[in-house]
């Protein structure tokens, strides 16, 4: 994974000192809250319902075991012993004191981490796939470009006060596990017939109040021109994006009001002025960054491991976990292990300091000291020899992280909602827990792979629009109500879900969700996924099932 050199380190250290001074000036009244606000946001600091929240970047979702331990230290020392992993490869600490924040940032800097631009109207943490570098279906490691873009965007002086936040995601796999289509800029990296790396550039995705998937702007961008192209998009956005209305300020609104054709022309015209010049990437820089992401030195292992096989056949609990959590690896004899942070024993995305320690220890003992964070709010140990899978499972059992539910109903993606968030219109964790509890594990296995996403308000932090079943918390005269969408999907065939009808009460929600999955079971052919069934039969059968029985 990427290691800081003297330049990276100098930058984060100076940034900490700059912020230390800004916090001091805020505390002695030299800076007004209005003046301080964007400064703190661009250093990851939000003011939530009960306290400050600090959002720390986990670039492209990769953490070393030492970094994970460092996060555990922060959780213990400055928070209440836990942290929340988000859908955007960040971790949030919910109970932070303003006066502590410079020390927290200094601690992060000491483990090569930062919170720069994790919030604010600027280019945010660049995201990519959690399985990057180990996935068998990838053409090139997308983290290399994610890192190059991250550096280019970090404290880039022209683009720190954009009309609105700006999110970039990169994927290079057949499937797209990075939800690329709902980003302000989505990048698909591929090799053309001559084996040259090129990007398909898509602009204008975003969820929230008016959800849009991004649209193709350029299909065959040479890899060396990716920075100049992003620069052109950002300059057009900075100049022409709306600033009068927060809800119309994302680039998706600009793209859709101009129309993709005119938008493309604007970008291309700008790009013609700057291409081929300073921002062109060099082979040297690409290989320098690429050299940081070399595969670890794998051992030569047999594909099958007898002991592992024995455990699978003799221990049904282990086998159940293996069937959900153990993912194929490009290297023979190795596997990736997905760790669910979900119900019933955990709260989605939350890990205690003890659990963080345990995962760090496992990465040291059996892996190559790295951990990945997925946008489903789960974790991954990417390189575990099969012979150690049983040990990993046993250790995870001890800290309550051996849930056999990855990809199932109870592996819901859930934002913090009214538990912490100022903007929430409804609760999310307690309600999601009830939905999960409505299913036995057998029932979940019967339903199989499905994504259920629950956001506590229209901002859609849990990506409810692209969940196979999306749930949006609303407030109807003081009571929590939940609007349901069906048919959302992520990946190469991303789709925004459709609302099935009036929102349902908190009490009815689990019943209604179950009716929807029952409608799927009743209608599915063979091995069809939920989404495939939806595409074949449409919304109506789900709608009927949901309302007739619920009496809503």
């Amino acid at each position: 994974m990427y290691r800081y050199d003297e330049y990276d380190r100098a930058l984060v250290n100076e940034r900490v000192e700059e912020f230390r001074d800004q916090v001091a000036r805020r505390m002695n009244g030299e800076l007004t809250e209005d003046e301080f606000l964007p400064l703190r946001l661009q250093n990851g600091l939000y003011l939530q319902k009960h306290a400050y929240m600090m959002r720390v970047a986990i670039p492209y979702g990769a953490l070393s075991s030492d970094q994970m331990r460092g996060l555990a230290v922060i959780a213990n020392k400055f928070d209440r012993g836990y942290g929340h992993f988000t859908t955007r490869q960040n971790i949030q600490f919910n109970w932070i004191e303003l006066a502590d924040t410079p020390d927290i940032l200094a601690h992060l800097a000491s483990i090569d981490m930062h919170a720069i631009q994790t919030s604010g109207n600027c280019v945010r943490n660049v995201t990519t796939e959690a399985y990057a570098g180990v996935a068998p279906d990838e053409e090139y490691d997308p983290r290399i470009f994610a890192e190059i873009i991250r550096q280019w965007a970090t404290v880039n002086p022209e683009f720190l006060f954009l009309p609105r936040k700006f999110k970039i995601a990169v994927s290079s796999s057949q499937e797209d596990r990075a939800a690329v289509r709902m980003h302000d800029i989505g990048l698909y990296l591929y090799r053309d017939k001559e084996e040259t790396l090129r990007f398909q550039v898509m602009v204008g995705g975003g969820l929230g109040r008016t959800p849009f998937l991004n649209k193709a702007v350029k299909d065959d961008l040479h890899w060396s021109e990716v920075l100049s192209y992003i620069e052109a998009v950002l300059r057009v956005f900075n100049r022409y994006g709306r600033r009068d209305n927060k809800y119309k300020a994302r680039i998706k609104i600009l793209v859709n009001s101009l129309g993709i054709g005119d938008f493309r022309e604007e970008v291309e015209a700008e790009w013609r002025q700057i291409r081929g010049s300073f921002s062109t990437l060099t082979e040297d820089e690409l290989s320098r960054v690429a050299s940081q992401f070399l595969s670890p030195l794998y051992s030569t292992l047999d594909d099958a491991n007898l002991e592992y096989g024995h455990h699978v056949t003799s221990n049904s609990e282990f086998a159940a976990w293996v069937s959900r959590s153990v993912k194929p690896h490009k290297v023979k004899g190795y596997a990736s292990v997905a760790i669910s942070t979900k119900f019933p024993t955990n709260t989605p995305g939350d890990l205690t300091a003890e659990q963080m320690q345990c995962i760090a220890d496992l990465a040291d003992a059996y892996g190559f000291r790295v951990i990945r964070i997925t946008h489903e709010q789960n974790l991954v140990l990417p390189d575990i020899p099969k012979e150690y899978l049983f040990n990993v499972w046993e250790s995870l059992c001890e800290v309550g992280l051996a849930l056999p539910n990855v990809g199932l109903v109870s592996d819901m993606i859930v934002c913090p909602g009214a538990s912490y968030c100022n903007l929430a219109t409804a609760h999310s964790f307690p309600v999601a827990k009830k939905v999960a509890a409505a299913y036995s594990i057998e029932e979940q296995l019967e339903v199989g792979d499905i994504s259920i996403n629950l956001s506590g308000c229209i901002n859609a932090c849990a990506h409810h629009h692209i969940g196979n079943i999306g749930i949006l918390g609303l407030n109807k005269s003081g009571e929590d109500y939940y609007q349901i969408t069906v048919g959302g999907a992520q990946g190469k065939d991303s789709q925004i879900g459709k609302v099935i009808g009036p929102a349902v009460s908190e009490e009815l929600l689990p019943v209604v969700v179950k009716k929807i999955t029952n409608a799927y079971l009743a209608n599915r052919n063979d091995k069809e996924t939920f989404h495939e069934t939806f595409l074949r039969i449409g919304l109506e059968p789900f709608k009927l099932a949901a309302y007739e029985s619920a009496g809503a």
Partner: protein
Amino acid sequence: MKNIIRIQSNEVAVVKADNWIISEEDHDALGSCEILPMKAWLARIKQGDDVNPALWIDVDDDAMELQDVIEKLSFICVFFEDFKDGRGYSTAYLLRKRLNYQGELRAFGDVLRDQLSLMRQCGFDSFAIKEGKDPYDATKGIKGLSVTYSGSVSQPNPLYRRVRR
């Protein structure tokens, strides 16, 4: 204008006030130190008037309209109505890089210490600090971080072209 910081050949100087005056709109009998809004200035030029080589650009003005007349200018002020509105940074970029403007480029309005290094990197070389703020204190904001990854107006080469990492 008041509360001025100017950077000249890497020297930072604070000037309590200079003689320039921002005019909200065009009017008869312009003084020799008045700075017209861009649109009014362009209208005067079109008429063939002899006006000051100075104008100010509002937040939603398009600086590219100065394309054909840029050599007539030696002093351009860019208005920041709200420091959170970043259009002025792109305006400065376009003036410097696209129109190759060489004169003094001043940010005025909601101009604060914590954004000065960003403005400097985008090509501003003078600042009228917001009234009520101390310009001497604000000079601390000019330097910024010693490491910049991307290129900018003041340093066109990105880090990977500047140093061997």
